């Protein structure tokens, strides 16, 4: 599958897909989407790069090992649950904070622990999907 056109297309598509996935992630709270779907889309972007250019390229695109994505995602999700505990609130209570992060995408992005949680999910899903793709890709040739 190492054809030149596919390679070019995948690299062209990559930023598009990634942006789209992040939009899906952030708008999930209001419209269909969310961390899981966004994560899958992002992973498919990485996977496409992988299929087109080989797993080495995919790994460089990922920046970190998939396990780092997974672990960080899990930690972020846990953190979203633990932050309210530190504030003396119930575990996983949604805490909202305006002001720390400027509202870039107008009112659609709401900084708070649920958002943090969703980002955790997103990272984790990216990690998992790329992990699996790399795994099956490396073992798939036999």
């Amino acid at each position: 599958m190492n054809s030149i056109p596919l390679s070019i297309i995948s690299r062209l598509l990559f930023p598009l897909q990634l942006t789209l996935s992040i939009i899906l992630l952030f708008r999930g709270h209001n419209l269909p989407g969310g961390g899981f779907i966004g994560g899958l889309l992002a992973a498919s972007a990485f996977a496409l790069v992988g299929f087109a250019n080989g797993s080495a390229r995919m790994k460089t695109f990922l920046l970190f090992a998939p396990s780092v994505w997974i672990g960080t995602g899990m930690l972020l999700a846990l953190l979203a649950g633990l932050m309210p505990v530190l504030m003396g609130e119930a575990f996983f209570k949604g805490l909202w904070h305006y002001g720390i992060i400027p509202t870039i995408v107008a009112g659609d992005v709401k900084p708070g622990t649920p958002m943090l949680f969703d980002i955790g999910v997103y990272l984790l899903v990216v990690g998992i999907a790329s992990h699996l793709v790399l795994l099956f890709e490396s073992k798939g040739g036999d």
Partner: protein
Amino acid sequence: MISALAILLISSLLAVPLRSLIGPRAGLLLALAPAGLFYRTFKSLPEISTGAVFLEKTPWISSLGVDLSFRLDGLSLLFLLLIYGIGALVLIYSVGYLKDDPLQGRFFGLVLFFLIAMAGLVAAENLILLFIFWELTSVASYFLISHYHTDAMARRSALRALLITGCGGLALLAGLILIGMRCGTFSLTEVLLQRENLVGDPRYLLILLLVLAGAFTKSAQFPFHFWLPGAMAAPAPVSALLHSATMVKAGVFLLARLFPALGGTPEWHTIVTGFGAITMLIGAVIAFAQTDLKRLLAYSTVSSLGTLTMLTGLGTVEAHKAMVVFLIVHAAYKAALFLVSGSVDHAVHTRDVRRLGGLLREMPLSATAAIISGLSMCGFPPMLGFLGKELMYEAKLQAPQIAGLVLSAGVASNILIVATATAAGLRPYLRTKLDDNIHGHEVSWTMWFGPLLLATLSIIWGSMPHLLQESVIRPAIEAVRGEPLKIKLALWHGINPVLVLSVLTLILGAAVFMVIKILRRFREWLGALVKGWNGDRTFDLLFDGTLGAARYLTRLSQHGYLRGYVAVMIAFTGMALLWAVWKVEAWHFAFQSPDLFLSAPPALIILILLMCGSAIFAAVAKSRLAVLSGFGVVGFGIALLFSWHGAPDLALTQFFVETILLILMLLVIGHLPRFQEGRGMRLRDLMLSVGVGLLFAIVTLHSFWVHTNDSISSFYLENAPVAKGNNVVNVILVDFRALDTMGEIIVLAVAALGASAVLRGSPGRSETGAGRRYQLSFKKVISQRKPGFKETLS
């Protein structure tokens, strides 16, 4: 009492370190514990003999009604003296007997542990506490029988003894619980006062049988008698202590203990006396046919236990008097004989009575002890045994029912016992040396001290029975009967039927012995015959039978075929659902509303029919691509259905997941040449699948019609703005039910990491350190053949 148990426990724990520190002599030091306790108990004799009962109670497990409560009365005192006394002698004996045994320390510890169990058993005031000690004696016995642990026979015998007494123990437990429930307490003292209540219980017979099962197994009554000779695999001191003097008498003790509460009824008389008499006779016959010194003694013990049981069953004052006296008599002579037989074995290295001879000269002190004890066993005056036999005959003569039968059985077995005693206690020492290859020598003082002391006591007590009469015997009988009594023991009663019987027994016994000497072949024939009476083969057969059944059932249910397991689960689910459907009459709902059928847009109908068709197509399709495309239609169809019914998030997710799964499937199973159909295409599978599938459909239909409550969903719709989101599903996922999502992503993470662990690394296995050893061994394990049937038992 607790302090006594504590002393024994401490010495038991000290045994091993002490033995390794100062060698075999540690036993002498350890014997101080039971000896001291013997002295302490002895000192309380005067008080007990006035009829006093010491009660001592420490709360333990109040919610189960179990206390650490103990009761010292005449009966428990008698047993305690036996236990401590013989316990101390046996410890001393073992110093020499097991001198070179590396496990001697553990042996000392176990003997002391047994003493705890036995002392606790006879002193326990709480029924459950009694049972605890009861089982502990079995456990101790198990460990002591299997002392020579590399001997397969010893292990087997120990297991058999434990299982038999364990079974009986469990029955006893059930009986005791029933007693406790009926009486509302487990306190022995209170239970003993509730005779009317217990005897009036409709379950009285059941209770009695359960208790008797416990007592009979422990006291080796017919048909459970066979474990006792097997227990002779134990070292001789163990046989002397557990399997003749103390533990096997626990059953008799229990009967005597519960006599005021359960005894005296016709059922009691019939069963206890009957089994006792049968055991007495059978034991005597088998004992007579033995040639191994220890086995011979073991079967005569069985006979004696039968006698004791029978006497307890008779239930008259005379019978109980005889029982108590014979208990002491038997403990004294049988323990001595066992110990000497151990010495003989130790010195001569054979226990075959046909080969032994001339031992009086070679080991004079041990032989003297054996001869005196043998005479006591025969019932010669002025030994204690004579007294016991006299009382026995007297009791039998005055037995309320079936006196003649009991008496003749008693006389017959006593004749045989006399012959046996001659063979075991007299001949090996008195007759001339037969075999020049056999050389004996006197054993060390630790080994002759005990038997000689016991023999001496036999003479002293026999000639001066009043020494025991008031201090020990009367209080014991009073404790059994629960009423004050006057008794008189004397060696000489004048010429009366009892004396005639005694003399007759001796003469006939001697005669039998003489005749048998001549009719050697008869004895061999008898030996061969009674071998079949040995219950252990029957027991093994029974046990093997259940094991065989177990094996069959296990093979049947645990056959290793996944599809069989799956079939069972699906069938079970189907049955459960069928029952539920039948109970709620679900089919009524299926056709209640015709618009269920009608009101669907054609596009939807077509979609669903298409999906159904694809699913069925996938089931029958042969090629991988065909199956997967069938699955694809179903999966994406479901996504469409979700979207149709207002679930865009679901539709999206389903779409993505389906895509990923199809790709993964293609990747992973892509390298298969073809599907092997195997034997999958069977009617059974088809019927099961269709049937259970139908049930699921019915259950779903049923669910439309019984909405009992409105969903809590309106809350989410109303409160989503509070959670600052408009997509309610997403808000539920990341806020209302974030914990679910948390779990979900963890599942994903584990699945992904696990997939690589399975394929690449191996968390279940490693190459270095401990894991490496394991890995190597692991291969051995799996290449194992299945164990043979025989192996399972041994």
